């Protein structure tokens, strides 16, 4: 019987959305291969074990809890060593991470320890006997590669938002796990965890992104973008193009594009964005794209599901008002 170990990412002892996406993907892959088990491991400080029932809600058969006072902050070396030890002990077919900042950091370490093949930032995968087939965007999203990984175990990381989390409740066995190395022996130490510029709703997790470009003319006009995002009642994050972050209008961490964040929200609203190839690479996998631009020939309209040609200084305030009304009146 096959099994996958999912590293379920937490922050401050709470599961992140990407953890549920990874469990759903593992459940789907194992079931498609004729059935098997999903083991979901969390690592954190004392109390992180309280997330076990949530792991089961999305389809984990076994919840592995690594609880240690020294793991209050991210400890890549201790976590990687422990995940690797669990994979070996459990004889798992694969380890699945999210390709978040944390997952991208741990997954190659685990592959190094295990001497395992690794595919990063995959959008889909299947277990095919001795091989794993994975789909992975390459050339900054301008092509899609199908990969074949040979060898057991294998290590995968999954692009946030590529798979929608689906509840599939299971009876979950909870097991506690000891760290494979002393967390205090880690050479890299996190000394501080601060809030990011622009708030805690991350671009990778926000269901809605409102992004602004040079068409806004100056930094102060980003207030229009922020107001539109606010109209969604807490579900929208604000992004920007490279031109805008290069000019210092917004923090570089919110840049969407091939050298910034790659995002796939349910709804992406591009405000005053022409649609340079480097920007499209970062958002073209969004589920629904809306573009507002005064130039009807702007490339952004080639990827937009819905476009409005017009002056954003007139369109955006009106849209903000209408979205606010629609969101306030939605059936709850």
């Amino acid at each position, binding site marked *: 019987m096959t099994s996958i170990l999912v590293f379920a990412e937490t922050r401050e002892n709470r599961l992140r959305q990407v953890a549920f996406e990874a469990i759903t993907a593992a459940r789907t892959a194992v079931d498609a291969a004729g059935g098997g088990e999903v083991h979901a491991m969390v690592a954190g400080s004392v109390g992180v074990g309280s997330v076990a029932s949530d792991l089961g809600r999305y389809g984990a058969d076994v919840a592995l809890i690594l609880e240690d006072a020294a793991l209050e902050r991210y400890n890549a070396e201790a976590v990687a060593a422990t995940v690797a030890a669990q994979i070996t002990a459990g004889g798992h077919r694969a380890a699945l991470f999210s390709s978040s900042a944390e997952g991208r950091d741990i997954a190659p370490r685990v592959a190094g320890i295990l001497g395992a093949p690794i595919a990063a930032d995959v959008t889909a995968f299947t277990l095919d006997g001795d091989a794993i087939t994975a789909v992975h965007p390459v050339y900054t999203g301008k092509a899609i590669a199908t990969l074949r990984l040979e060898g057991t175990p294998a290590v995968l990381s999954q692009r946030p938002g590529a798979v929608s989390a689906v509840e599939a409740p299971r009876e979950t066995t909870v097991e506690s796990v000891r760290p494979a190395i002393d967390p205090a022996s880690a050479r890299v130490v996190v000394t501080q965890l601060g809030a990011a510029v622009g708030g805690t709703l991350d671009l990778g*997790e926000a269901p809605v992104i409102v992004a602004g470009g040079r068409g806004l003319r100056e930094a102060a006009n980003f207030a229009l973008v922020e107001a539109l995002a606010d109209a969604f009642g807490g579900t929208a994050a604000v992004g920007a193009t490279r031109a805008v972050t290069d000019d210092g209008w917004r923090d*570089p961490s919110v840049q969407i594009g091939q*050298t910034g964040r790659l995002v796939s929200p349910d709804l992406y609203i591009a405000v005053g964005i022409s649609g340079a190839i480097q920007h499209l690479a970062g958002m073209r996998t969004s589920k629904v794209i809306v573009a507002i631009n005064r130039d009807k020939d702007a490339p952004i309209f080639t990827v937009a599901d819905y476009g409005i040609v017009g002056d954003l200084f007139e369109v955006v305030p009106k849209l903000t008002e209408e979205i606010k009304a629609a969101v306030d009146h939605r059936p709850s």
Partner: protein
Amino acid sequence: MKIAVCIKRVPDTELRFTIAADGQSLDSTGMKYEISTFDEYAVEAALRLNEAHGPGEVTVVGLGPAALGEQLRRAMSMGADRAIHLTADEVPFDGAAIAHALADALEGQSYDLILFGRNATDTGNGVVGPMVAHQLNLPCVTGISHLEIGAGQGTAKRVLEGAVETVTFPLPAVLTIDEGLGRPRIPSLKGIMGAKKKPLAESPAELGPVRVSVTALAPPPDRPPGRIVGQGADAVPELVRLLRDEAKVLS
């Protein structure tokens, strides 16, 4: 400080391209190449560190075919002192195979820092740096957007989703560099002339076994054709209706 920077030769990200007839690679006709974006930031970071901390040496290391010499020379024209070219007719997709060759070449050379870009713009993998760190048993910090080096120790910032993490690490270390440390300089004419005389050592790459391969390459699926809902603010009510009733993203 003695710093090594590993760089990759990749297709120019601004170019459009077509998939080759084999369905597994790019059509190289008319293709242009460059140093992968984040690797160029890593070269810049190394140069700035030594400019700030007194004398040192920056070695650029690359793995690839003969034409990689162009990118190694470019890094030297930016200011790197020397280059190591690990020759291979093709660069495998498998990051573990690449890491094996790089670690082999970097081992025992007593670098204080080994820098990488946070990921290459061709494969988008970002696994080689941490895997080299594992093979050399060095501490590793990925995706750095701010860096300070003191006596035998460094402090770095990493931007996570919705948070910023500050970490400390001992030297020597392997670091992968994000944007934020300073935009790469454009080589001066003097730099370009000087780079021609700088040492470039070649040796065959000792690649590890390849267990991850590309079996098919395709253009991304076309988005279904969209539509212009209308002109100006008058089109907003119809747009909101479509988002609610057709796209169903407002419920």
